């Protein structure tokens, strides 16, 4: 019996011209798990996410299984500026119940009182929370997060981390977070994948109970290991610390 949140990829190869971005990649995501995908820029992590989201064409020779209900939060909020916040949340949702569902989703991300605001009047954090509400309202079985915190200021980012964890616990979609921030990956995910040269170079479980703290020795050890997987030398790490 397969869970309807099962994600499975077999033999995914993607080339752009002569450049192979993903090479015979295999990936299996546990239903309801929170996985972070780390990688240097150009390592193909966005390509993988876009393929899972159905934004890039799926090569015929690859076997890709994803749930039907997929939602994405991008690095930029990508709200339609000419639609009010609640209309952005219900974008593409059929049915009369959509406004009520939007209202609930906005309440969940703490934006209930901004339902009639124009996106241009929102702060960066509010806009990104609206984008999360728009993803959530579809009750996704697979939630794809494409560096959604990268453009936020540090304090807003901390709040967003907590919010995403809360939402994930409440709705338990299979979640894949693409990021280049090692700390963020350790803080949020159960499992961390490192993508390098088009393949999964490391697959590391995060065995630290939540809430996790930077001060934890296991946190620091995992951080060192991930950074070296990403090719950042030990001296540089010590230097920066």
């Amino acid at each position, binding site marked *: 019996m397969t869970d309807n949140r099962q994600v499975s990829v077999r033999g995914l190869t993607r080339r752009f011209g002569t450049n192979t971005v993903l090479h015979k990649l295999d990936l299996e995501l546990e239903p309801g798990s929170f996985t972070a995908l780390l990688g240097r820029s150009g390592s193909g992590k966005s390509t993988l996410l876009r393929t899972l*989201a159905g934004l890039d064409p799926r090569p015929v020779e690859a076997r890709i299984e994803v749930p039907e209900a*997929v939602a994405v939060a991008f690095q930029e909020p*990508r709200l339609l500026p000419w639609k009010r916040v609640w209309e952005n949340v219900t974008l593409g949702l059929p049915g009369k119940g959509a406004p009520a569902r939007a209202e609930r989703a906005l309440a969940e991300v703490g934006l209930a009182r901004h339902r009639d605001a*124009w996106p*241009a009047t929102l702060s960066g954090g509010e806009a990104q929370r609206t984008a999360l509400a728009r993803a959530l309202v579809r009750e996704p079985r697979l939630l794809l997060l494409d560096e959604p915190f990268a453009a936020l200021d540090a304090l807003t980012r901390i709040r967003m981390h907590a919010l995403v964890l809360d939402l994930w616990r409440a709705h338990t979609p299979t979640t894949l977070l693409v990021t280049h921030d090692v700390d963020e990956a350790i803080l949020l995910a159960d499992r961390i994948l490192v993508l390098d040269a088009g393949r999964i170079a490391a697959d590391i479980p995060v065995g630290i109970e939540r809430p996790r703290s930077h001060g934890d020795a296991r946190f620091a050890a995992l951080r060192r290991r991930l950074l070296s997987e990403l090719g950042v030398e030990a001296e540089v790490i010590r230097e920066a610390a």
Partner: protein
Amino acid sequence: MSDTHALGARERLAPSLPFRAALPRLNLRSYRRFLSPLVLILLWQAASMAGLIAPRTLAAPSTIIATAWELLLSGELPHHLLVSLGRVAGGLAIGVTTGIVLAVIAGLSRIGEEVVDAPMQMLRTLPFLALVPLFILWFGIGETPKIALVALGSAFPVYLTLFAGIRGVDPKLAEAGRVFGLDRRGLVRHVILPGALPSGLVGLRYALGSAWLSLVIAEQINATAGIGFLINDARDFLRTDVIVVGLLVYALLGLGADALVRAFERRALAWRPNLIKA
């Protein structure tokens, strides 16, 4: 999570404080703006009364006002005005519709662009007012060439700006729309057309300006009614007062049309940050 919501705060304050504070300053400035035109008109009136400006060169402002009043009461001005408005409305309806349809066809598909855009870009380099002789040969001297000229003049600005607007829509927004389940029709309706609207409305304002210009030229072609006819007829009788009244009506019509589009813009583009702040 209490990011302040600046707009809400401003809205709540708006009715009382800033209004009262801004009022006297606004008045003073608007007085000053009207002062210099008023002085010029008074000088013109004085020069006319002193016999420095002959009535057949330019009528005195007082005569012009009296003539305007007479033309209004006799029903002559309203009659000609309605004829002119009819021509502009008919021409604009045809021209703007054509412009929108062609821009949507060219904007939404490669084939459409290849078929539509190349001839449109070539045609637009023609000064369309130079087509008047051809139009007279094709359509005679009735209403048709006049409406056709207005239509032609207004179609191009709408086409060019709306086409550019459609192509300028952020592809990332279209992508987000696709992820969230919009089909092609939904994308056009919710993402592409609203995104192209600001640019299209700029085109509409150009189109209106172009329409009045076309009307002026068109009404010089053997018209028997309309503001242009009123002006031409007055020329034969050396009635500079009637000519100036006609010109003023043209100006007011242009201003009115522009104000109409701007009022529509304020409603339709309420989401834009600059309009929110204003």
